[in-house]
């Protein structure tokens, strides 16, 4: 009886320790399995990130090169425009094509932001403006009145088109088309027999 009384607490303690060990084993094994899954996932991540790094490695240099080449192109165009049209007219031309762009100015010419864009950008259409710039002696500038714009730049271009001789712009609305010729023409004409033949000799006139 005494032995049982002494052994009972020991058995309970052993059971308690056993329970703790079982809980430790269960949770630690579960944790190890999860950590292994995480390790596998991180390996995948590492491989994908390595691909990203290798694929994006040359991007910086290539984009920088493209930007520098585009900068050179823009500098070339701006320089050409300013050289040929002058800074003031160049700003006016840019503002005519892209209303409001004169405020930003030309990149290579910081002083262009202080230039007041000529009023031509408010008057003429793009085509008219281009023609005016190409032919610098065009009378279109003389036809422009001194004050007030001829047309709303955001509206129609009739006012500007009226500056040109009346050929196609107002009347007639549609000119007749050019005649179609050749084998596929809707109207076929018979070839004359005498075309290409020896010239007929007239009978000799009797004196």
């Amino acid at each position, binding site marked *: 009886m005494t032995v049982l009384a002494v052994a009972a607490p020991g058995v309970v303690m052993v059971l308690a320790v056993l329970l703790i060990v079982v809980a*430790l084993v269960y949770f630690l094994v579960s944790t190890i399995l999860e950590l292994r899954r995480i390790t596998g996932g991180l390996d995948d*991540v590492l491989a994908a990130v390595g691909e990203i790094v290798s694929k994006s490695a040359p991007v910086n240099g290539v984009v920088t090169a493209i930007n520098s080449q585009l900068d050179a192109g823009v500098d070339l165009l701006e320089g050409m425009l300013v050289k040929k049209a002058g800074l003031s007219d160049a700003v006016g031309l840019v503002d005519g094509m892209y209303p409001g762009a004169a405020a930003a100015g030309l990149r290579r010419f910081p002083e262009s932001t202080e230039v007041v864009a000529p009023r031509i950008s408010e008057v003429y259409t793009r085509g008219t403006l281009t023609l005016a710039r190409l032919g610098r002696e065009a009378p279109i500038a003389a036809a422009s009145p001194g004050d007030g714009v001829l047309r709303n730049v955001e509206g129609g271009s009739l006012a500007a088109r009226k500056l040109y001789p009346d050929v196609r712009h107002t009347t007639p609305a549609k000119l007749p088309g050019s005649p179609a010729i050749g084998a596929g023409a809707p109207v076929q004409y018979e070839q004359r027999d005498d075309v290409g033949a020896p010239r007929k000799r007239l009978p000799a006139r009797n004196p």
Partner: protein
Amino acid sequence: MTLWWIGNAVLLLVILPVVVYLLHGVLKAVKGIAPSVQGISSVAAAGSKDLDAAPLLLTTQDQVEQTVAGLADYGSSLDVILDDAEEGRR
């Protein structure tokens, strides 16, 4: 003997629950990491796939070079054809 029983009770009622609670927390946290890693893995794979077009930048670079070269040729021709602004005003 009584102290022994008290020790057993503490072992069963305090130590064991605390151990289970702590280990359960660790396991729960670890299980929470796994889906995040899977998500990161899928996103990284998609990002890597998106960069498949990056080599095309070399083609873009070549085309930009050709375009700028053509622009330079065109500009030099225009430079010859058109008068400069200063010359035109003389």
